């Protein structure tokens, strides 16, 4: 019997809100705000989901600042406002942007003169988010930054689960963070998968994703350790599975078989049958290929009445943060007993054959699934459980 791993705290920041309560309120009211980017000048017209009025301290990357903001909330909820000093702790976080020196003005200066300001270099070299967290929170145990593209946040939860169940640590800061940056903004546009309208996950007329940003941080902890500290959370990460498509650099395997392997692996680890899954928080980017492969797989494995949503209509695609944010939204669904509408959907796609939930919906059940698919053919599945 694997060691139960409890979610003792959660923190989230994204375009839908700067903490879990604000996000819950936006979900309940069906509010979303895709707008032209303000973080950089551009001639392109793809709307994005920015975190508004967020002040990033000088000298650190925005991604890291977002992650610290979410971590503060998660640690407070976990009953650890003073941090993790003295605990057998680890940190595993996913990202994409923070792993690259995507600073155009610095690079222009370097190209033109053969040298450039040291500040952006220092921010990059000090900005590996797991290393930065290890320094800030004096974390003595394992530390890793996962760079698995869009499944990074979900895969980071899987790494944390492995560490905890292997007894390498008692508590892990896990999740993901990413900022909206001009480089991927141009890149997704060039790939032809960015939409010029607010995204419409699983809709018949969907035409691409909107980039988002944010951070989702979960404090994962061996149940015994959490209880000894007095934490009484009933939410658990009970299963994680991952599998490769071995197919294409940017397109998912059309038959969804990689995703199916990941989901079956996660269900097996959790000891759960597919009929016990109350709902699915899908990756649901609103690209033609992703939603078709994912939706058809849901219909095949979970049946025509499966309850599923994509929350990217509220948040945009937050890349390395997405899997962690959506694991938090999945846990919130179980805890609150409702999930939001799949905002942006209006017409069923006959090629998919099933529709996501179109309205805020009451949920009962102990288990829910969050799925993530990524560039490179990574598929990840996380099972969240609420013990009654």
């Amino acid at each position, binding site marked *: 019997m*694997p060691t139960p791993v409890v979610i003792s705290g959660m923190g989230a920041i994204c375009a839908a809100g700067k903490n879990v309560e604000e996000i819950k309120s936006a979900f309940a009211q069906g509010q979303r705000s895709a707008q032209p980017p303000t973080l950089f000048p551009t*001639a*392109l017209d793809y709307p994005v989901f920015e975190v508004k009025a967020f002040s990033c301290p000088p000298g650190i990357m925005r991604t890291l600042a977002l992650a610290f903001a979410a971590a503060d909330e998660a640690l407070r909820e976990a009953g650890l406002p003073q941090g993790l000093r003295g605990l057998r702790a680890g940190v595993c976080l996913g990202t*994409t942007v923070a*792993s*690259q*020196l*995507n600073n*155009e003005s610095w*690079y*222009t200066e*370097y*190209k033109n003169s053969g*040298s450039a300001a040291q500040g952006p*270099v220092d921010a990059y*070299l000090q900005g*590996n988010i*797991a*290393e930065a967290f290890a320094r800030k929170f004096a974390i003595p145990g*394992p*530390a*890793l*930054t*996962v*760079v*698995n*593209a869009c499944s990074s946040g979900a*895969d980071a939860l899987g*790494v944390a689960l*492995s*560490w905890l*169940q*292997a007894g*390498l640590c008692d508590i892990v800061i896990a999740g993901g963070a990413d900022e909206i940056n*001009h*480089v*991927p903004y*141009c*890149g997704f*546009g*060039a*790939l*032809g998968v960015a939409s010029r309208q607010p995204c419409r996950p699983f809709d018949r007329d969907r035409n691409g994703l909107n980039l988002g940003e944010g951070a989702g941080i979960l404090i994962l902890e061996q149940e015994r350790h959490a209880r000894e500290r007095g934490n009484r959370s009933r939410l658990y990460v009970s299963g994680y*599975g*991952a*599998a*490769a*498509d*071995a*197919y294409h*650099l*940017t397109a998912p395997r059309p038959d969804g078989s*990689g995703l199916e*392997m990941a989901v079956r*692996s996660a269900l097996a680890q959790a000891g759960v049958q597919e009929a016990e899954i109350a709902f699915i928080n899908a990756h649901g980017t609103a690209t033609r290929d992703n939603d078709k492969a994912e939706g058809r797989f849901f219909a095949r494995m979970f049946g025509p009445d499966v309850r599923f949503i994509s929350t990217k209509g509220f948040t945009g695609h937050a890349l390395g943060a997405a899997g962690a944010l959506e694991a938090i939204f999945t846990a919130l669904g179980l805890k609150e007993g409702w999930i939001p509408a799949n905002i942006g959907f209006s017409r069923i796609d006959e090629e998919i054959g099933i529709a996501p939930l179109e309205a805020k919906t009451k949920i009962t059940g102990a288990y829910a699934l969050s799925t993530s698919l*990524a*560039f*490179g*053919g*990574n598929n990840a599945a996380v099972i969240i459980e609420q013990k009654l």
Partner: protein
Amino acid sequence: MNINGIGIVCNYGRGLAVVKAALEAGRAPDILASRVNNDILKDKIFSHEARRSGRFDRLAVLAALDALADSGINREVEKNDIGIILATAFGPHVTTFRFLDDILSFKESDVSPILFSHSVHNAAVSYVSALSGIRGPTLTVTRFSRAFEEALTLAQAWLEQKRTRYVLVGAVDEHSSIMEYITRFESANAFGEGGVFFVVSREKCAKIYSQAQPPASPYAEETEPLQSAFSCAAAIILKMRQET
């Protein structure tokens, strides 16, 4: 945890025999701050569906597929039971900067989607997976130091938890003048280029280089992943030399 196979591409060349000969000739067990010979990266495996792969991807593919071949694992049979963990300090940064060149040189709408898709860190593992048929869990991880040691620790956890029967675990980085500039104040050791992969398992395969933990890196904790992985491989190769 057993080490069942090793693959190396570095400034000394490609393959265990080449590295062994270099070490026996008295060359240091270091990844030097020089580039891998371009001819090595023109293997015929890159002639079709991998023709657009970048330098970083090719270093990963050659080292990983050599490690698989060295292990003797039947990957057609075992493909769902092999995982991959790649550790890197800087990822495919040369491609990242080439994509920045595109943005700075052309209209935003005219940049190359191929450069963008190859600039993400996990593109290399995607190529390894697609070219080998591996369908197990795949992970790319990054830290400027200790990333390989952490990858190895995670591989051991995956094996003990029966997430996979085998793990291809290794480190890859590429060298460039811009990274030399960026890291000029960072390390006494120069950042090098290459790919080193190990097949690890709990299985009793035909070949077992080491039956215990892989040798710890002889370097201090602040060692970049590629150097750590190369040090592990060099230690095994030197031990083989003593035993023979």
